[in-house]
């Protein structure tokens, strides 16, 4: 199944490169997970590169509001809950950039995190976001989004559990003084969430983020298709990835920046 998906994506990418103009799309959203030094270097390159090309770095809620405009917007987003984000914050502050963090609220509780780390495919030694760094994110003026309580595969749990995952996420962050306006689906793909669950989220949040490069066939205004930053690949590889995926998605959904 995975092979089929990645090969389909490869075909789409190469067709894209062949037939579309090679301009950068006007709307770009990216997502990162854990940030090692390599990612941090890449983020700095990315900031310089897109600023130089006239892009404005925006939070995801602003990005969603202006999704049909032709302004050049780019949204940086970070998923799950990692302590290593602490090293990204000075960089974002230095360049005066506001990003969005989709946080699993389990990181802010005292619950046992073994299952959570299993859910996100990380080893036990991974450092989970601390309260201190969380407070710093808020203080720096970044946006916080929802990402469920403990990152389960939503299509594998029942509707009651699903609602609990969402309400816990909302309530715990509300206690910290954060109002969630946007939400990112765990694992990013449409197939990991049922239609009924998606309808519930539609009512609850202003915008919903997927992370399914080029394969989301819906043009609902509030749906945002994010491109993953591929860890271990070069800046150039990722740049190509961004333009082909975004352009293909915009073509399917007839959004701006068809390019």
């Amino acid at each position, binding site marked *: 199944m995975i092979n089929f998906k990645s090969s389909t994506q490869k075909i789409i990418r190469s067709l894209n490169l062949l037939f579309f103009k*090679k*301009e*950068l799309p006007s709307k770009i959203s990216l997502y990162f997970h854990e940030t090692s030094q390599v990612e941090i*270097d890449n983020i*700095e*390159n990315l900031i*310089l*590169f897109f*600023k*130089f*090309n*006239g892009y404005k770095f925006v939070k995801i809620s602003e990005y969603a509001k202006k999704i049909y405009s032709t302004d050049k917007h780019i949204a940086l987003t970070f998923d799950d809950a990692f302590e290593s984000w602490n090293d990204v914050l000075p960089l974002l502050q230095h360049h005066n950039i506001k990003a969005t963090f989709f946080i699993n609220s389990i990181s802010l509780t005292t619950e046992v995190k073994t299952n959570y780390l299993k859910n996100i495919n990380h080893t036990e030694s991974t450092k989970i976001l601390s309260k201190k760094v969380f407070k710093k994110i808020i203080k720096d003026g970044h946006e916080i989004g929802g990402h469920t309580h403990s990152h389960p595969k939503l299509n594998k749990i029942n509707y009651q559990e699903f609602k609990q995952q969402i309400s816990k996420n909302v309530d715990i962050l509300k206690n910290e003084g954060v109002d969630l306006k946007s939400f990112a689906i765990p694992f990013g793909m449409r197939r990991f969430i049922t239609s009924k669950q998606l309808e519930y989220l539609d009512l609850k949040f202003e915008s919903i983020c997927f992370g399914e490069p080029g394969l989301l066939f819906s043009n609902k205004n509030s749906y945002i298709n994010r491109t993953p930053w591929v860890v271990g690949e*070069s*800046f*150039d590889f990722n*740049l*190509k990835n*961004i*333009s082909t995926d975004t352009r293909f998605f915009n073509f399917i959904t007839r959004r701006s920046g068809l390019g």
Partner: protein
Amino acid sequence: MSVHNDAINIESSVLSILSQTYKNYEFLILDDCSTDGTKEKLIQLEKKDKRIKLFFNSTNLGLTKSLNILLNHSTTEFIARQDSDDLSLTDRLEKQIKFVKKFNLDGCSTLSYIKNSNQIINKKSSFFKPEYFLKYKNPFIHGTYFLKKNIYDKLNNYDERFYYAQDYKFITELFKRNINFKILKEPLYVLNLTNNISTKYYEEQKQFADLVKENFNK
């Protein structure tokens, strides 16, 4: 780097050098008698970073002479170029130094993105021998030149008779003397193709470039 009236781009260009992962350098900038606030911006930037060393021309001398002034002021083993309307990616210097040392070269240039696109410039020509292309055009991007200081001394810096196309002249001289210069086949630079010298003064530059070609093909 030499700059004349480029207040819009100067800051991003300078910051891209200051954000380099390779930190041990001095950054010589010459303001070629700007009148649009570039000079003031440079003075502000100089206060932020000790590695910046500013120089000023009292009259506008053009790029060739300005670059020679800077070359005379430089003392380091390697010299990298940067244009005031372009951008270097943060790992540019680090990768160029590693490349030159690894293959024991006298210098190298890199590939480049074109501003506002994800297209890479000079990618096709980098697969062929540069000598072939030098007969028709300069296959290297001036802003990405990275050379040993002693090469500039050997060639007596840029040829001041060439107000434009000084980079083309320089590189042809270099290849006549069999100096080891290669392209690092990675895009580490972003080139601004709108409103730069090559598009604004296309005719004038072409005349100078034709001169170089004649000279080289002899």
